């Protein structure tokens, strides 16, 4: 019957998912959300590919704990890490100094570690050269005399066990202002004087670029941060062997050069290729073309939004039917959906990440998007059903139609306009919110937006933002067209 057209609503997002089939399991390299980690991730990917091992790189997934959890949860197979961070943040044991002791401790978690890659990227406090000279500050101890200096450090550094708090205690610093600020934005803040001191990594390309000085760690507070790769012990043997070829091949000077190249060209693949001493021409040609990247981001974006929308429809319409009947259950359903909607999307993602089933994965993003998509569908289904005039409900009953027939052939088709507009709202919300999925390494069009924010590079941001906005408009138009097919003609007069 014509009235069963409502079934097709669910086929639309399903179609979006089907058109994007997933690849066979490649080795997944993760990286943290800063340039050096991106570059090391790219180097690892290229090394594996050169060894004939399929590999993909999930760029900038987050901070240490997120990457560590992703590794333990097998969502990634390897990622670049630093020995100091492993001891302080992951194993939480400051007595672990030798690589051997750390390796033993890690093996209990089923995680292996390469030998150091060859450079020490320790934390450092940095200032503008002119400001430091003006105040005569050369060492961290010198900061004691200047509590008026504004400190701006990354959120991770603020919370780390080898970060701001112990450092301030050790050096007896009591500055008047300490704020948390994104790493990339911190450089801009340093330049315009919003902050005076920030944390950095000793191989950071921007130190040279912005003419900054590293304050001497005169009491030797910071531990050694030798770069290594952590990998799952169960990772394929040839992949482990390939990663180990990187051991001892990268010194500080080389790393600063690669970091500088990455920041100058905004192209991590190109910077990574410098490591392999390719000439620039072939480096550009081996980078993934923009059209491929865009297709990959868009497809992933549609998968995330489409699958979560499908779930929201399948769950939301029955919930809406229950909610339309009012009573305690009905109010509870609408109340729950409304509360979920008020949780900030970033907070919802953060709440889901530590749960066992979720972690750092597309699953988490889909679950969060599903929860967001629920309310409009539930509410519109319920109100659409409630708006059916009593006389028409009674006519359906008086005819002798069974309850199921009344629902499928009379009530739902009569509410189709309202239900579809709820689905449309959810779809547009999901396409927009799916950009946040990149924060937990789930990919999509948020990936370039996040990289761009990290590099303070507007072009990269727009490479994600413009397609995401267009996608939302296209989804809106598609549903407007779908209205004509799915809403019975008699209701459109």
């Amino acid at each position, binding site marked *: 019957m014509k009235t069963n057209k409502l079934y097709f609503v669910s086929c639309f997002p399903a179609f979006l998912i089907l058109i994007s089939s997933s690849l066979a399991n490649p080795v997944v390299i993760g990286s943290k959300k800063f340039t050096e980690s991106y570059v090391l991730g790219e180097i690892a990917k290229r090394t594996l590919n050169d060894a004939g091992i399929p590999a993909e790189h999930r760029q900038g997934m987050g901070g240490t704990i997120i990457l560590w959890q992703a590794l333990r949860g097998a969502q990634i197979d390897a990622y670049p890490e630093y020995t100091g961070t492993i001891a302080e943040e992951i194993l939480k044991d400051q007595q672990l100094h030798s690589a051997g002791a750390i390796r033993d401790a890690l093996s209990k978690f089923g995680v292996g570690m390469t030998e150091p890659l060859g450079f020490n990227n320790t934390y450092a406090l940095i200032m503008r050269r002119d400001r430091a000279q003006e105040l005569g500050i050369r060492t961290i101890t010198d900061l004691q005399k200047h509590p008026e200096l504004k400190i701006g450090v990354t959120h991770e550094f603020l919370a780390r066990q080898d970060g701001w708090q112990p450092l301030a205690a050790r050096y007896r610093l009591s500055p008047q202002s300490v704020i948390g600020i994104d790493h990339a934005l911190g450089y801009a803040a340093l330049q315009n004087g919003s902050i005076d001191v920030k944390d950095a990594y000793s191989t950071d390309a921007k130190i040279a670029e912005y003419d900054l000085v590293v304050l001497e760690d005169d009491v030797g507070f910071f531990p050694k941060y030798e770069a290594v790769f952590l990998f799952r012990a169960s990772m394929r043997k040839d992949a482990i062997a390939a990663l180990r070829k990187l051991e001892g091949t990268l010194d500080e000077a080389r790393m600063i050069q690669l970091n500088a190249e990455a920041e100058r060209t905004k192209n991590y693949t190109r910077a990574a290729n410098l490591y392999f001493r390719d000439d620039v021409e072939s480096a550009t040609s081996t980078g993934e073309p923009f059209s491929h990247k865009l297709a990959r981001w868009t497809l992933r974006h549609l998968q995330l939004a489409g699958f979560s929308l499908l779930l929201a429809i399948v769950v939301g319409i029955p919930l809406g039917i229950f909610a339309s009947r009012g009573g305690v259950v009905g109010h509870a359903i609408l109340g729950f959906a409304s509360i979920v909607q008020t949780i900030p999307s970033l907070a919802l993602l953060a709440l889901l990440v530590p749960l066992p089933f979720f972690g750092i994965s597309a699953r988490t993003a889909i679950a969060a998007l599903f929860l967001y998509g629920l309310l409009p569908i539930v509410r519109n289904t319920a109100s659409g059903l409630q708006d059916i005039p009593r006389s028409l409900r009674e006519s359906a009953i008086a005819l002798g139609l069974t309850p199921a027939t009344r629902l499928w052939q009379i009530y739902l088709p009569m509410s189709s306009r309202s239900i579809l507009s709820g689905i449309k709202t959810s779809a547009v919300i999901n396409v927009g919110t799916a950009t946040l999925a990149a924060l937990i390494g789930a990919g999509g069009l948020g990936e370039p937006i996040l990289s761009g924010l990290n590099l303070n590079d507007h072009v990269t941001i727009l490479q994600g933002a413009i397609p995401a906005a267009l996608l939302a408009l296209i989804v809106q138009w598609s549903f407007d067209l779908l209205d004509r097919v799915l809403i019975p003609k*008699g*209701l459109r007069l």
Partner: protein
Amino acid sequence: MVGRSALVWRFLFQIVAGVADPGPESVRGTKMSALVQLIDVRKSYDGAPALHPTNLSIERGKTTVLIGPSGCGKSTLLRIIIGLIAPDSGTTDFEGSQITPANIDMLRRRIGYVIQEGGLFPHLTARANILLMARHLGKTDAEMHPRLSELCELTRFSENLLARYPLELSGGQRQRVSLMRALMLSPELLLLDEPLGALDPLVRASLQKDLKEIFGRLKQTALLVTHDLAEATYFGDAIVLMNEGRIVQQGSVADLRERPASDFVSEFINAQRSVALA
């Protein structure tokens, strides 16, 4: 929907628990020729009685007219028969067997129901509205085609208009479609709740004439609710006058006019007459 089924279940419980009064044997015994019989049916809303214990018989082949001022309980009575309202107590018999939640869906297929605004489903064409129940019962459109043509002829509705949606039809046409839908399965009983109430006078007059002719041709047992005495007079083989939840008097219009049972009856008849004359 939940509210309604809860009522129905409570109704069922009352019957099982024997709360419902089976009614005086004399009433049941003497009127076996009636198609529908209401025995001591009572209904109140939040303690306010809408229908005091009421007995009523609907005779086969006749048009019984329920008349009375707004809120007198006439619609409540009609809606109890089709099971849209469960009575607090009392029983309704259809062809001698009691209407229960278990058999109400079967009985509804033997009862046609027409309401003021037609009650047509806007997302279905006139044809789909008329054939809805037949299709639900698994009959093919080809099978039903002769019956549909017959109904169109009977109700003077052009077959060309069957493909239209309710919103593309006039008020009078909608009521003709609603009537066809009610008559589709040849119901033994036709319930009409102010079927002409929303129509302008000319359309109303022509539909009244057609309806009366249809009832005559089909020897249709019908229960018509109206507040218009002229309409009641025109249709009524038996007129049932109600007020404040009670049946005040039953009989022909002449009975009501010449032998009013109470002051209310005279008042009601005179008021309607003066309106008609004014």
